[in-house]
Each structure stands twice: as C-alpha cells, then as structure tokens.
C-alpha cells in the first residue's frame, strides 16, 4: 500500500555514491565472513539514505549490485524497516514517538503542535522541502518523553517552546544534519 505523502521532488540526479561512502561500504562488508556480506545491507542502506536524502530505487539498485544480490532483496529489506524512506522526504525528517509512555506525557499535543506550526499533516512535507513530519513507534527514550528523532539525533523532553526552538535551529542551520 502506498502511504500518503506530499512528494518533495529531490531534484538532484543520482550519479553514484561518493568515494567516502563507497569506502565505508567496503569496510562494513569486512565485518562479516566471506560469503556473508549481505549482512552489511542495513548499514549500507543507512549510509545510502544519508547521502541521497531518501532511498531512491537507483540507490537501492546500486547497493544490490555491490552486494551481488537481486534488487528485490534490497526492496524487501528497505520496506520492512521503518527508518528507511522509500519515498522522497524533506531535508529534516521529524519522527515523533507516539507510543504509550510518550502519549502519557503529551506526545499527541506535540504532534498536533508541529502539524500546526509547519502547516503539514503527519506524513507530509513542507512546501520548501525542509521538513517532513512522521510519527514512529517507541524510540526507547521513554524516560525523557515526549521525544522526536531527526536524522539520527534525539530531541527529548519536548515542549511547545522546545519545538519552536528546534525548528528555528534547523532552519537557521544551527543544528547540522
């Protein structure tokens, strides 16, 4: 099933991974015995996503080629794990936890507030392509709830004021991706 997303067109054409990323791919493959390199796939997909901004088909096909596996095997993995965005997303993806412990201390209100503030719905991307809002299940930070993660960074004990600060900080580039 396709998820509802406002598609932010990532205009940059994919021309293969950078040298640094390729070097990392090679290093990661060495973590596993010969013939078991497929184990590197999840970490490679993380790196691929970080470089491209999302997991485009081209990017996934390239990963398949490097692991010498069929492309469908990569698609199967990429669509199983929720951290991978197989549809285009904004530059900063706010993934707000919605599970029990966060809900108990007001994550619903935080989600509503971000929707209002960025003028998007959950799953949507701002018109300038800067922010995408998603909800996720438990991030394992329940004691510091409500919490959101943005491109691997945790932002905890959220309040409306903190959300304001956070959005400003991202917009002005104080927090780097």
């Amino acid at each position: 099933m396709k998820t509802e997303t406002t598609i932010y067109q990532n205009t940059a054409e994919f021309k293969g991974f950078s040298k640094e990323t390729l070097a990392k791919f090679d290093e990661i493959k060495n973590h596993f015995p010969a013939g078991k390199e497929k184990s590197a796939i999840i970490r490679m997909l993380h790196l691929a996503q970080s470089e491209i901004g999302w997991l485009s088909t081209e990017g996934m096909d390239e990963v398949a080629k490097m692991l010498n596996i069929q492309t469908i095997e990569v698609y199967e993995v990429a669509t199983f794990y929720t951290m991978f965005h197989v549809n285009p997303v904004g530059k900063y993806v706010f993934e707000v936890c919605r599970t029990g412990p966060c809900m108990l201390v007001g994550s619903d209100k935080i989600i509503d507030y971000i929707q209002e503030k960025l003028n998007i719905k959950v799953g949507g991307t701002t018109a300038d392509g800067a922010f995408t809002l998603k909800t996720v299940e438990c991030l394992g930070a329940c004691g510091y709830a409500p919490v959101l993660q943005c491109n691997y960074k945790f932002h905890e004990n959220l309040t409306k004021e903190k959300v304001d600060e956070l959005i400003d900080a991202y917009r002005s580039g104080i927090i780097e991706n």
Partner: protein
Amino acid sequence: MKVTIDDITIEVEAGTTILNAARKIGGEVVPPAMCFYSKLPGTGGKCRTCLVEVAAGSTADPRPMPKLVASCSTPVMDGMIVKNKTSERVHEGRSAVVEFLLINHPLDCPICDQAGECNLQDLGYEHGSVKTRYEEERRTFDPIDIGDKIKLHMNRCILCYRCVEVANQLTEKRVHGVLNRGEHAEISTFIEQAVDNEFSGNMIDVCPVGALTDRTFRFKSRVWFLKPMEAECDCKKCAGKVVLWMFGQEIYRVTGRKDQYGEIETIDDKTAWICNECRFDKKDLAKWKVTGPRVIDRHSVISQGKYETSITPSIKKIN
C-alpha cells in the same frame, strides 16, 4: 521412530515432520496446509492452519507441549502422540486461523477463477462460521501489473510465500517478493515490472488462493464446467506432462498435475513443474497427446458436480 496421530501409529524416518507422517497415514488425520509445500523447501510454518496438539512429546519426555504446534515444521520424536481431528483445541485453533484469514479476504468467490479449487474456500467450508464478526473495512491494495500472463490480485493473498520460493528455486531471477510488513505486507515487484521467466507460471499452480491466476484463462469458465484430461507433449524445457482443462474440443487452460494436497506430482522422481510455453501458449489440441481423463479427488465444491460420476470407476484413483 514411532508416532501416533489420532490413535493411528506409524513408523517413520527420523526428521520426518508431523504433517508428512500424517500424509503417510492419509485420510482424515492429515492437517490442512496453506503455506507448506513439500516440493518447495523452506516453505511452511506461516499460515498456522496445520496446527496440531502434541499430547506427548516423546517416549523419553512424555510431557505434552503447552502450545499447539505447526505440524508442517515440527519433526516427530519417537513415541510422540499427536492429536489432530481428535482434539478440541486443534479445532478451535484452526477455526481461529480461518477466521483471521477471512476477515480481510474479499468475498469475490463468484468472480474468482480459483473458486472450486481454492484451499481457503475448502477451509472456510469446514471451519468457518456463517457470519463474520468483522465490522471494519476490508484491507485493499493498489493493483499492480506483473505481466500479460499472470494476474496478481493482492487483496486475495494470504501471504504463504510459496510463489516467492517458486521464483527462488525454479527461476534464475526473482523480481517479486514480500514488501512492507504487518497487515500491509504484500507481494509486489516494488517498481512495476513483469514477472517473466520460463517457469514463473508455476506461481499460479502453487498459489493456494486466487491471488495468482492465469490471464489466458481469466473469466473464461468456472473450473467445474471443464473436463480435466491428462496430456503430454515433447517439451525441451519441462516434462510436458500436464492437465488440459477442456470444454468440448477446446483447451481452456493448462495446469500442472496436482495431487490431493494440491501439490505438483512427482513424475520419474522429479517434480513435474511445467514451463510457461506449455501453460500459456499451447492451447491447440493438436500439440498434445491426450492420455486419458484426470480424476480430481477433492472434497470441495469442484467435485460436487460431475467429476466423480462422470469418470469410469475403473480408472485408478490417484491417492
């Protein structure tokens, strides 16, 4: 080693699964299987329709197993006592599984080409309830096109993974698989592309429901109006041993030869998978040598009509 299933004791080799032991006995004690396919290693364990009760684990450790176990993937132990038909818990468990499989399954049997030879239909007939308790909207998937020969109807899929294994084991390149997860898991190619390979048509034969059907046969006829005939041809790609589904002198569809568990038969020690050319492109009777009628020994709607009466009893029944 000895295993007792529904009070019938049988000797089997070590490593045999409960389901295969039951199939050796045959008849009523055989649990149904929707995802397990003995000719496709790696299948099984998923649909949970073959759950049985293990009343005694083995002679060495006669304790009962606390949960029902999947008979297709649990090996027997010496002295194991299994209950299938004779267990109330099994009946309850199986009804539960059938209910789960049906809540999101479309009620489109009247227009589904699989009707009459559908495992889910059979199970619903045996274990289903008259009315559904599901008040929610049924889950639907966006249709995708996987080529001009095979029709994928994802709404009907029960995710048995058999077709994935067909592609893994019979074809060189797999382009379809299971994407997403949970109740959104679906068979798909991700980017639209044709599932096209010499043996991909076998996906249709292994599909327990109407999720994968033959486009060359689509909406042509109900299967119970057709006469199944055994036929063969000289084929370079496959054994060429098929069943022709005929109406008069016309071939409506071609399938592999299936045994009573719906699995492709073993002929000359090989599973008689058929190639796409035999299945889709040889609808001309002149291309086949018909060797006789095919007895379909099934208990579902397909045999309610004429098969059992129309065929001379002297023909050996396939057991």
